[in-house]
Structures are given as C-alpha cells and as structure tokens.
C-alpha cells in the first residue's frame, strides 16, 4: 500500500541518491548534446575560487554547487586538472559528484571534466575527434560545448567531457565491474616488455577502479599482456595475444586516430599516450579507450601509418593480414564518414559538423576574454579545421590504397 510515509521516504531516498533541485527528466544525453552550447554555472566560495586559481598545481578539491539546465547539484567537488593545459587563468577542472556523498551521481555520472581548450584555438578538435570515434562505434567519451559561469560571471568557453569511470564503462561496455587504468605518460614508451617486476606497469597505469586490490591482481595481467605482445611467435601472434588484448578493437581505434590525424594518441609522437585501459575481469582481454584529443585534426596530410614500426604492438599486429585489413578498412570507413553527404550536396559530414559547431561556439569563444588566443587566431584555427575536414577523407583513402592495396592479404 502506497502511504504518504512511503512516498515521503521514496522522495527522501531519491534526494539522497541524487541531490538535484529544479527540472527533472534530464539525461546525460541532454548534457552532452552538442546541438547547443551548454550553460554550466558553478557557485564557488570566493576564497576557494581565488585559491584554486592561485594554486593550480595543487589539485586541491573545493566545494561548489553546479547548475545546469535548471537543475542544481549541491556540494560537488571541483579541482584543477590537466598537464599542458593546467592553468590558473582559465583552469581546466574536474567535477566530482560523489566526493562528499558516497555513491551520489548526477544524470548517472560520477564526475565530469570541464576542459579549458588551452591548447586548441579552434575549440573543436577534441569535440570532433571524439565524435568521429563514437560515430565509428568505438568506445569514447561524450562531449559538448559549454559556456562556464563562475558565481554568475562568464568564465569562458569550455568543453564538458564525460569522465572515463564506472558509468562510462557501463554505457560503453555494458558492465563496469572490471579493472580500469588511466595511462600516465612518464617517458617515450612503445609497448616494449619491461620485465617481470610489476612496478613499471603500476607507474604507467594508475587504477581507477578496484584501487584497493593487490598489485598482483591489478598488474599481473598487464605484465602478461606486454610480455606476450613482445614474445609471442609470429605465427601464433593473434592467438597468443587475443586473450590479453581485443586486437580488432585496437586496430579500429588506431585507424580512427590516424584518420583524424591524432599525433598524441596510442601511436603518438611522444610514444603511447592519452588513453585508458580496461579489462572486464582477471582473464578478459584489455580494451583501449581514447582520451584527450586536443591537438587532432591539424595536419591534413598527417601520415596514416605514423609510428607503426616503433610501437611493438602495432608493428606486430600489422604483420597479421586480417588485422592489417581491419586497419585499412577502418581508415576507409572513417574517410567515407568524413565525406558522407547523406544525400545532400557537398560538403561532407565532417565539414558540415565543423561548420555547424563553429557557428554555434563562435559567440562563446569571442566573449571568452581568458582564452590564450585572440579571436583572429580562433578564426584562423577554425579555417584550418574546415580545410582539414574538406580534404582529409580523400587523403586518407588515397594513402590507404597506396600503402595497402585492397585486399591486403
């Protein structure tokens, strides 16, 4: 029997689980809807906001209230984030919903990022790159353009980015009970075997789930993965490595990153970088999840086979005909996506998306007095993005055909 007490209890429970006030029936899809610039308000104590900007390297948490689309989330935690993008002028921030109330979520999210676009004058590179990945069916975070207000004062144009955490895993992989690691760039690393000591792997891959488990439980499978990639006989490579890595997914992701000219991803100019590693169980294969594509979509003639030979995993995978074919096919699939007209006249999908987004964000970018670029530099970068979108598909297709005539086996 539904009594008033039951109703009141249910309402209180709902409030405890999701401390939001205001409009309801919003979803994370609404938050990451890139058809509009999302207005996000943060209310932060003036002392805390001063300290956050004065000490951006401290990564200290400060309490705040977040308001979005009529919904207020009280007692969130914010901190600065980033490496090259770390700034006290226009801080990139992580927003945690569960730091001060265990288990609390907002729109099903435990956290989100507010990227400050410190390295991207166009404000579009990561937004478009991740959209390409998702459109190709790859697991990648959702993003949307955002106008950030701090204490009702405009604080600049940002990207609101889905965090790679349990809610993301549940959305992308259908479950979230496994082992998630964030890659920390320490040095140029190309998937060489580092020995049986687990410490080097632990240094590179910080656990983001199951943090309290033993080092062996966390990293023995990682060590076995790298060892097998390096030591498996050529003839057995796919069979030997498949228990440790989803090779098909790896080839599709690296091809997609090549298509968007990502120079700082799995096959980057600085070695392995910008990704998360996930395995759903102790014996499950690892999956790679892309992160931070802030310098992609730059050089329209960026090679589609860059760093293949340096990276052990890629070099050996490309020696397997079926995997090479998967790579090539994904390149062509991406190029076709870029140029897809959907029955309309040119331009293609990527240029249309770039044009639409540029028109959408331009007022927010122009009004952003804290960005490290001038408006002219924004316009020049935007023009570069449009040019990339216009010509990259053809270049990728041409290079794929030249390097790996179809069929490749």
């Amino acid at each position, binding site marked *: 029997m539904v009594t008033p007490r039951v109703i009141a209890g249910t309402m209180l429970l709902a409030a405890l689980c999701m*401390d939001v006030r205001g409009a309801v029936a919003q979803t994370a899809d609404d938050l990451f809807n890139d058809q509009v610039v999302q207005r996000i308000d943060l209310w*932060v*104590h*003036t002392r805390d906001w001063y300290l956050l900007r004065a000490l951006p390297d401290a990564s200290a948490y400060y309490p705040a209230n977040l308001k979005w689309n009529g919904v207020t989330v*009280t*007692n969130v935690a914010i901190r600065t984030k980033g490496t090259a993008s770390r700034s006290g002028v226009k801080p990139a921030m992580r927003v945690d919903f569960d730091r*001060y*109330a265990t288990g609390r979520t907002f729109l099903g999210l435990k956290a989100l990022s507010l990227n400050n676009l410190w390295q991207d004058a166009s404000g579009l590179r990561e937004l478009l790159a991740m959209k390409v990945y998702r459109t190709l069916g790859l697991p990648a975070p959702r993003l949307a353009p955002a106008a950030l207000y701090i*204490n009702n004062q405009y604080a600049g144009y940002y990207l609101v980015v889905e965090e790679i955490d349990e809610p993301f895993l549940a959305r992308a992989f259908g479950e979230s009970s496994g082992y998630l690691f964030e890659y920390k760039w320490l040095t140029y690393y190309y998937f060489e075997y580092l020995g049986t000591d687990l410490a080097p792997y632990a240094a590179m891959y910080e656990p983001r789930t199951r943090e309290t488990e033993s080092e062996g439980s966390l990293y023995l499978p990682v060590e076995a993965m790298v060892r097998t990639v390096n030591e498996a006989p050529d003839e057995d490579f796919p069979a030997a490595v498949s228990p440790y890595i989803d090779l098909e997914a790896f080839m599709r992701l690296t091809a997609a990153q090549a298509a968007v000219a990502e120079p700082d991803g799995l096959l980057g100019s600085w070695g392995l970088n910008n990704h998360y590693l996930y395995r759903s169980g102790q014996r499950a294969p690892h999956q790679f999840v892309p992160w931070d594509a802030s310098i992609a979509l730059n050089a329209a003639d960026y090679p589609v086979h860059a760093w293949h030979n340096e990276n052990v995993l890629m070099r050996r995978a490309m020696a397997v005909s079926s995997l090479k074919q998967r790579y090539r096919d994904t390149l062509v699939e991406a190029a076709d996506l870029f140029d897809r007209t959907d029955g309309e006249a040119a331009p293609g999908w990527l240029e249309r998306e770039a044009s639409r987004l540029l028109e959408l964000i331009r007022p927010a970018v122009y009004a952003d007095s804290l960005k490290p670029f001038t408006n002219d530099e924004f316009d020049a970068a935007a023009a570069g993005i449009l040019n990339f979108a216009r010509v990259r598909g053809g270049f990728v297709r041409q290079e794929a055909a030249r390097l790996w005539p179809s069929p490749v086996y």
Partner: protein
Amino acid sequence: MRALSAITGVFLAALAGAPQAAAQQGASPTSGLGDAGSRPVFTARAPLLLTAAAVPPAPPAAANDGLVWDNRPGIRYGDWFQLDLRALLEGNVTSLDPDLNGEGTVFEWSRRRIGVQGRVTKYVEYEVDYGFDDADEESAEWRDVFVNVRPAAFAQVQGGKFKIPFGYERLTGPGTLDFVYRSRVSDALTPGRSIGVMAHGRAFNRVFRYAIGTFQDDGDQPPDLEPVEPLPDEEPSQEGRTWALRATVAPLRLSSLPGKYNNLEIGGAYTRGTIPEGRNHLQGDTVFGGDFFDRQYYTKGQRARFGLEASWAIGPASVAAEYIVSRDAREGQGVGNEGQLDNDLPEIEGRGWYVAGTWVVTGENREGGVNPKRPLLQGGFGAIEVTGRYERLRFASAGSPTEPPSRSPRAATVAPNGDRAWTLGVNWYVNRWVKIRFNLINETLDDPELGPAPDASSLRTIVTQFGIGF
C-alpha cells in the same frame, strides 16, 4: 615496560608510606590534584576554593610553622602563608575491540602533573600547575596559573589561566572524576582553560553560587584553532574573547535535611565567543580513539554554549547529569547562490547529555569525595565504589536545512553523526592517595562510516587506571 615499572614502584611507595602519613591526617584542608575531596565550584582547582571558601581555621602557628606534612608536603607560616606541593600521576592500561592497530593491551601515561597551591593571608589564594595530559611528551604545559582575591565569600576575583566556568564535569578535578574519562559531551563541548578574569562567589550559606568572566579565547578544548590564511588585502581572521556565566543553586540547603543529603545542586551556564574563519568547529571524539565528527566544515562567527547540570551526593551514592548544546556560526561560508555570494550557512550544533550514578559499596560518604575508612595495610582494603554512566553526543546542522547531508566543507547540511555510550566501572580507593579505576565502555556510532572503525557496529574500550595524587 619501564613506565609500568615506574608506576608500580610509585604505587608500592605510596602504599608503604600510607600508615605513617595516615597518622598525620587531621582536619586539614582536603584540596589536592589527586585528592578525593574535591567537587567543582568555579575554578580549575575546585578543591582549593571549596576549602578556602570555607575559610578553615589556620593551623596553630607555633605548631606548624616551616615544613609540614599535611597529607602532602607543605610550608606554613602562621595564618598568613600556606604553600602545598601537589602532584598527580595516572597511567592507563587499555585494550580495544576491535583492535585496529593490533597492539593488544597497552600502557600509557594519562596525566603527570605537579604544582603548588596555597594562600597568602586569608584574602589571596594562588595555584600553579604544570604537566602532561597525554602520552605525548610535547603536551606538557602550564595548566592552572592563577590568583584568587577574596575580600568576601560573595565577591571574589580570580585572574590568570584557569578553566572557563562551564560544565560540572569539566570543572571537576581529574583526581576526583568518577570515571577514567570524562563524558563525551564534557570532552567535546566544554571550553577548558583560558587566560582571563572572573568574578565569582557564593551567598545565602552556599545556596547560591555564581561566576562570570571574560577570557582571551575559547579555551583549550579543542586545541589548535587553525584560521585560514588571509588572502591579499584581507584582514587576518582572529579568535575573539569569550564571555562565560555560570550559576548554581542548592535548594535543599534551605530544608531541614541532614547535611549529607542536602547538597543537591542544579545550575546552568552559558558562554559566548568568536571563532575565526577556518575549520574550527567543535569536534566529536570517541573514547575508543579517533573522531566520529571531524573538524572538516568551515566556520566563522559566534560560538555559543548552553548547559544545564545537576548533581547530588546522597550518603554513599551520587547522581549527576548534564545537558549541553553548542552552536558554531558559519557566517559567509557557503558557496553562494543567485542571491548572494558566500552565503551564510546554518550553524553546526553539538548536543549531548549524560546521566551518571555511583554507589560506595563499603559505605563511605560521597560528599566531599570518598575517603576510605579502612585503607589498605591499615586493617582494611580501602573503599569500593561501583559506577555507571549513559551518554549521548551528536553533531548536526542546526535548524532544518533542506539539502541532503554532505561531507562538503561548505555543506548547508553537514553529514551528522552521534556517539551513544555506556560505561560500567569499579573504583578502588586504596587509601586517600591511591585510586584504581576500572571502566568498560561501549560506544555505538550513528554512522560508523564516519568513525574510526567503519565496519564495527560498536566500539569497546576496557581501561584500568592507576592513579596516585596528593
């Protein structure tokens, strides 16, 4: 182990010296750091004032001038100068369940104090104490350092460092506590010592007592306030003065009841001060060790306390109870909203009470403290007292804020937590100087997740305290 050997040696010495010293016992003042005769009046060293207020007859000058032993070493010069040496040594043997640190049963010093107290003429009293309260050697400090001028019993002025007049149990000297530990509410919500000046006195044959004073800060409970660092062009946030008022009445003194039954005393107290901006609210600690309500919320503004108390010694039994509420303001500590930057937040409220009872099985009177009729090695085994206490302390946001609870340092609704504890104990008064207390304490937290043992439904502490004082 060396500490245990040391206290054992001191105990044996105290026992061995008891018969000789007992021969000198007389009608002298029953004050002392570890004395059984003290009950709280209005100062840190209540026994002193109790006896001083009674204005005991000065010892005959010719008989007692110079060095004397009057339950403790002292110096007397007629009726114009008195100095008594005071000392208190206490050590605890404690075991915890759950044993989080895997240490098993451990010994720690709990109090090591030494001091002097006395008077110069019958108008000026003084006290100086120095000592440690914890096992931590660095905690040694000057504790009570004050002078009391008493031209009349109803009009006295005390200045120096001493306990702010608030809380019956807080004002009870450590040697005369009924339990090893003060109640959680006394421990958390009473102010402790500060430097100040206080007017106090009694009237109508001790039916009415009062104290009103002002102090430079809010005392040393809890210690170490941490104001925030001032921002550029910002004035440093500082702690303000604390005002305190306490009054008690003993209504049964107006009746015809015999003296040992008419000492029911009821009263109330109030303090008001200003705490600086920072994470400086009162906090809740368990007896078990570790806190259950940490100082994690920003506060600024007024701190107010209100307390009610009652105590009654009835022959060999006694009962005591207190109810205390504290409120710490949080002016301008919110994250702000459309209407106001840095908005005010609801106060943090600490609220607690306890009820305690004791019964001296061997029949000695409780009033004035238990003094065994037949001490050990003097034809008896001392006095035995059984004790019990039930208590409650809880912290939460004051009022009825609408937000769900949060651990955010600027949450309107703080994550509340409370501690509910019962204590069963036995006190063995070996002689007038040596006292052994045994306590079994069981604590249950409202939210164990915020406590020292998140997986434990209850926290049990078994402690035996060996104390010697004169």
